[in-house]
């Protein structure tokens, strides 16, 4: 790949210092920073709601809040975390920042659309916050009809419109990524030289453009049902409320992959860099991303095994769900084997990535209980499911988000953070997470239904809820800590070199830290393969041995 660049030029952060220069920017990197700030804010909101829920559940009789408030708290947690954090976090922050750089482009294909997408996101987020403040939303993030359309009180209309608007933000980002990845790759950057990061984001973008409109219009129909009393899902008019679930999960199951595929993208990069090795089975991993995206669309019925859908359909969907295990298994084994004959460097992003592999493995395997029709009947809609999807979503996406944050922090802001704290913190995240969610598997198997405020009729559940809340407190501490040391590093951290991890890839090798406005001087020409690390040479250098002779 191309050579070093001069660093004395103005970087993208110095291009303007006024508020307008940020709010009207068309630079993908600045928009990524805007997203980083707003996403962190919504993560905080969602976390506070989560802590309220966890604290309330320490007592079987709920002492802190009323039924109504509790329902609003868990709805706020679910909806904010999913619509305004998980779906957005990695693609909009790191995807925006890195995809153009990784493929050697100056910017995304449609910079104005990119900015518009941030405004839509903020508009949606603000609307949702208003809905939360002015009455709250208590229908659960899934908004099942007819509860959401007819019976529930509260600001459901506004919340649904918020989700609709932020859906457009997703769609714009997806369209932008697809056009960019197809047409703006640098000379020599063929499909099989693309970093796996880009492959995964491409797959996620496909899901976004195919799925998001479905849920958007479905939620809009619920809005109309509430406001104008038209009734597509209303059983009073002979409609089928289960049709809503079909439409909803047609998007919302693939949406899980919108959340986790970008996470997988990050893990591929981090594992390669810190193992000093090419990702094991590069082509398999790349294609498995597309495989997951396609298969993800034909498994939605596994959310509905007990929802009164036909049992024949249940069995069909169960079968297709097991097929998804294949590409997922490929990925986990390939990431692990990437360390084989590598030079493993346990830096903080690597610890997060290893944590991701562990938690995603558990999350994926517990999916077997839920994909199998018979075993799903008992544990669906219990805390078992809650634990399962937190292992995938939090263990997957959140850990990948933290890994990415640490890995590319020097690139984004040109500063180094205190590595020792970061390492210990990564370990604390892993432990706190397991402490929070392992007990939930047990309590779910015991029969604790999700979204329950009280459980005085089954007091034996309490011990697990207390354990879970303790774990959540540890997790909360470990999630606040990075906010402090990363912010500290922004002002006091040492200046980062262009390539502090000695990593490969255009963003490290051909680009300053932080990058200049148009990322590169001229057009980078890609000649080598992706991930051309040489663990052996690096080890020899570390040990002071002479480089091995080439034959």
């Amino acid at each position, binding site marked *: 790949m191309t050579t070093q660049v001069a660093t004395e030029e103005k970087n993208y952060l110095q291009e303007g210092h006024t508020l307008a220069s940020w709010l009207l920017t068309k630079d993908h990197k600045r928009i990524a920073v805007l997203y980083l700030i707003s996403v962190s804010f919504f993560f905080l909101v969602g976390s506070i709601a989560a802590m309220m829920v966890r604290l309330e559940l320490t007592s079987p009789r709920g002492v802190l809040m009323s039924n109504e408030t509790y329902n609003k708290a868990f709805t706020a947690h679910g909806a904010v975390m999913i619509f305004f954090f998980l779906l957005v976090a990695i693609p909009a922050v790191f995807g925006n920042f890195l995809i153009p750089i990784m493929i050697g482009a100056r910017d995304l294909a449609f910079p104005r659309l990119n900015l518009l997408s941030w405004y839509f996101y903020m508009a949606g987020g603000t609307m949702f916050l208003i809905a939360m403040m002015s009455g709250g939303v208590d229908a659960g993030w899934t908004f099942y009809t007819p509860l959401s359309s007819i019976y529930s009180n509260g600001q459901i209309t506004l919340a649904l419109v918020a989700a609709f608007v932020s859906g457009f933000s997703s769609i714009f980002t997806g369209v932008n990524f697809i056009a960019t990845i197809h047409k703006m790759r640098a000379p020599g950057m063929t499909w099989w030289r693309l970093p796996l990061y880009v492959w995964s984001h491409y797959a996620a973008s496909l899901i976004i453009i195919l799925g998001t409109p479905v849920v958007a219009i479905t939620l809009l129909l619920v809005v109309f049902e509430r406001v104008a009393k038209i009734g597509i899902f209303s059983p009073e008019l002979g409609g089928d409320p289960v049709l809503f679930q079909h439409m909803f999960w047609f998007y919302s199951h693939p949406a899980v992959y919108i959340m986790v595929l970008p996470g997988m993208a990050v893990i591929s990069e981090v594992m390669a860099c810190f193992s000093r090795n090419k990702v094991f089975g590069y082509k398999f991993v790349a294609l498995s991303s597309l495989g997951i995206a396609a298969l993800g669309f034909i498994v939605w019925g596994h959310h509905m095994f007990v929802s009164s859908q036909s049992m024949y359909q249940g069995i069909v969907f169960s079968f297709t769900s097991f097929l998804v295990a294949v590409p997922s298994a490929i990925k986990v084994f390939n990431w692990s084997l990437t*360390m084989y*004959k590598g030079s493993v460097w346990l830096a903080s992003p690597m610890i997060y990535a290893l944590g991701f592999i562990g938690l995603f493995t558990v999350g994926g395997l517990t999916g077997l209980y839920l994909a199998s029709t*018979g075993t799903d009947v008992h544990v669906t*809609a219990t805390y078992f499911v809650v634990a399962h999807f937190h292992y995938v979503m939090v263990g997957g996406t959140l850990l990948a988000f933290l890994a990415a944050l640490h890995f590319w922090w020097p690139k984004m802001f040109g500063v180094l953070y205190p590595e020792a704290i970061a390492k210990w913190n990564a370990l604390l995240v892993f432990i706190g997470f397991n402490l929070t969610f392992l007990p939930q598997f047990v309590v779910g198997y015991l029969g604790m239904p999700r979204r329950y405020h009280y459980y005085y009729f089954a007091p034996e559940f309490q011990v697990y809820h207390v354990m879970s809340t303790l774990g959540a407190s540890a997790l909360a501490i470990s999630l606040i800590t990075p906010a402090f040391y990363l912010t500290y590093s922004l002002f006091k951290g040492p200046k980062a070199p262009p390539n502090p991890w000695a990593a490969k890839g255009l963003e490290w090798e051909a680009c300053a830290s932080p990058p200049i406005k148009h990322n590169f001087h001229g057009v980078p020409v890609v000649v080598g393969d992706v991930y051309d690390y040489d663990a052996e040479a690096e080890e020899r250098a570390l040990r002071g041995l002479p480089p091995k002779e080439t034959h």
Partner: protein
Amino acid sequence: MNFPFAPEQASNFAVEYDTLFYIITAFTVLTTLFVFLLCLGLIIKYKRGSGKPEDRSNPMHHNTIIELSSSGGFLVIGLGIFFWGAKMYLEMRQPPENAMEINVIGKRWMWHAQHDNGVRENNELHVPVGTPVKLTMISQDVIHSFYIPQFRVQYMVVPGRYTQMWFTPTKPGKYNLFCAMHCGTQHSEMGGYVYALEPSEFAKWKESGGDRFRPKPEMPAAAGKQLYEDFMCGSCHTEQDNKRAPSLYGLFGRQRQFTDGSSMVADRDYIRQSLLAPEGKITKGYESMMQPYSFTEEQILELIEYIKTLGTPAAPAAPVTAAQNAGEQR
């Protein structure tokens, strides 16, 4: 403080369910352990610049055999779980012929159960041990879910349509009854207990009209008969098929042919639909004459009970002018 790890096994499904559950658990634990040890081993062996220098020459970047065997092995085990789970699911979804029938209505935020002799109970369900019990369920408002963890059964209760589920209690006791689908403010309090009683005790309980409620001299089928007469259903639906309408005698559970060429078994949903929206399925040979009625869910259940009591089918009359009506939808 006790640490329970599994709910009681109190129904015919529980033992098989738990067996499969623990097999998947073993698989999960072993695979997780394998991945964990693999990572740990690789980290220790190939940690950067530590210990003795490892052989890193000829690095392996892909191995199709590993890829295919790991994913293939996973798929095979997965399919094994799939088939077992599917078998269990099919059993759960198909009640046996001799099941005792109980009707359940869900509403925010209570459960209402009706036994076949007219005994009704709220937020409680009494069932006999050793007898298969089939619940026919419908909701009055939003979607609920009828969940008894100790029986390992759960099914959603939707408005507008009957759903069913069945189980055979195997152990006397008091078990949890939950609504597992978020249904609004008091969702977590929509529940109660299921009492599995010895058959003799259950019979006694049922005969004495339940232990809670004062009996009132009306049973569902009788109430249904009253409705049938009040609404003068008998003016069209007579004992024999006639020009106006087919007979309802011996209707329930029979195959029906419709004008649009389709056919289906006359079940609860069919009768419910025929009452609320009769035009949808017109019996072959008849014209659409009946108007839609708006009964309450309970009234419909009572009418169904009554129709079920209508004796053996009378000899059906020859269909009237089938050819005349066949081609015409409206």
